[in-house]
């Protein structure tokens, strides 16, 4: 217990000092993205890992958060920073709607419905040009030239989201979420309003994912439907972050975010320019292989199967 606290304090300190030590914009950028993915992966994990409602549509909330902030800045001239709160709330409202529609379905059918929801939102964002500028996308002016403010904001968001998820999972809600995952009928007969608590889980999950989306808008200063509503780059990535790090663990998605950003960047840059250019085209393939490997050999992810990994490397007799 005490050792864990020391490790957490050490990680926190390292992350706080990182941009002061590493001045490279490029590496700061990667860590900012990883921190953003800590938020999204954790959100996905709350809904899918703990509550058992596997979403293939988290791009809906990410994109909604990003567009809420972007449209606020673009149409009304209000700073996109206000959009951080607005983005989270808008995404949560969309979450309620999606829940109302999709929670009538269970298991794989729910998952399929969320894929459909993601595609519907992408098409709306593409077609409703008067509101979203369609494929042209939304561009705003970045508030800061330095990456430092964005870095610390992302760090704060990541830490805050993990704190909230941890507290939720230690409360009555957490017990209810896991009960619903384990057996919805049994949970209902134990007095758990499964419809309500699935929506509570979705609400928290979509709120934080929307915040991450609004942050992305502020940070990147440009969005278009194919990026923020992408099935591949957002929805599937959220799942990969969750399962590679470790489903239904607090630290899993956090670690998964850094691993996935690392893997993605390694391949996107063709192993930092050392490998032939076609390598950069193959990152989807590598993601697929990685998922197969994790499912076959580490079904509980890096954090969930940590004792197993430790045994493998230490080979204690």
């Amino acid at each position, binding site marked *: 217990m005490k050792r864990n606290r020391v490790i957490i304090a050490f990680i926190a300190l390292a992350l706080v000092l990182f941009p002061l030590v590493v001045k490279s914009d490029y590496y700061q950028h990667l860590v900012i993205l990883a921190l953003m993915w800590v938020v999204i992966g954790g959100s996905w994990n709350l809904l899918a890992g703990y509550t058992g409602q596997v979403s293939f549509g988290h791009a809906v909330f990410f994109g909604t958060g990003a567009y809420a902030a972007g449209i606020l800045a673009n149409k009304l001239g209000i700073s996109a920073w206000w959009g951080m709160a607005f983005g989270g709330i808008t995404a949560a409202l969309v979450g309620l709607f999606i829940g109302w529609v999709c929670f009538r379905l269970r298991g794989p059918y729910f998952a399929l419905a969320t894929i459909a929801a993601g595609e519907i939102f992408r098409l709306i964002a593409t077609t409703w040009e008067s509101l979203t500028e369609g494929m042209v996308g939304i561009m705003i002016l970045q508030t800061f030239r330095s990456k430092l403010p964005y870095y610390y904001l992302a760090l704060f968001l990541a830490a805050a989201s993990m704190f909230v998820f941890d507290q939720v999972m*230690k*409360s*009555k809600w957490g*017990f*209810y979420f*896991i*009960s619903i995952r*384990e*057996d919805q*009928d*049994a*949970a*209902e*007969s*134990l*007095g*758990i*309003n*499964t419809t309500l608590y699935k929506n509570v889980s979705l609400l928290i999950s979509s709120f934080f994912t929307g915040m991450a989306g609004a942050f992305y808008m502020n940070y990147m200063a440009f969005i278009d439907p194919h990026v923020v509503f992408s099935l591949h780059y957002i929805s599937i990535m959220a799942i990969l972050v969750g399962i590679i790090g470790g489903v239904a663990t607090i630290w899993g998605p956090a670690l998964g975010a850094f691993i996935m950003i690392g893997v993605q960047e390694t391949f996107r840059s063709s192993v930092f320019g050392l490998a032939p250019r076609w390598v950069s085209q193959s990152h989807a393939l590598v993601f697929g292989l990685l998922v197969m490997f994790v499912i076959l050999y580490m079904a509980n992810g890096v954090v969930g199967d940590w004792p197993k990994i430790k045994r493998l490397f230490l080979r204690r007799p």
Partner: protein
Amino acid sequence: MIAVSFFEVQEISKRFGGLMAVNGVSFQVEPGKIFGLIGPNGSGKTTIFNLINQYYTLTAGDILFKGKSIKGLKTHEICHLGIGRTFQVVKPLKRMSVLENVMASAFCRVNTFGEARKLAIETLDFCNLLSEKDKAAKSLPIASRKRLEITRAMATKPELLLLDETAAGLNPGELDEAIDLIKRIRDRGVTIIIVEHIMKVIMSISDRIHAINYGQTIAEGKPEEVANNREVIEAYLGEAYAEGGTH
């Protein structure tokens, strides 16, 4: 003035397509008693439980708990009203520990982690399952799983408890423990409706027994009355026994 009965089902029916699984069954349960529900396989016992806790919706009839209709409520609301149930096919929350299983249901009555833990431990102790509290629910043998079902239902502090074949699959020693537990639950003032196939259990603990077959009532009365009823013997053992019997 007519006294309000504690629990009453009035002419309840459930139709699944062309099949009347339950057809016009009525009974009343007095508080503090153990009420047995018997019938051959497929006669509609579990369906009646599913109707009582509103997992299925009634095709016809009404169910009154303390004088109020509970028809149309949600399953989780039934639990909050004070009607707990166990499942014939046990449904442990597998990847949670025994203690966590019971805590999850204790949250029905309390709100904080500490209170839930306290209530869960008390209930586990009462049901003689405290020694297993840190084990994963999926690792329990069947007898303990059945006991966990009861413990979980008890942690919701029910006034009426529906026990669905909690003695099935137990060995004689475990059976005696189960009977003892059911009696202790009754002594706490909890009213029990029990579905059971094992006659040793149902005959020895029930105050009244209601027998059904093909979804319809065939007899109701004290255990010995029902055991000697011609239609009950026919339903269980066949016509030859009913006719050749000594009654």
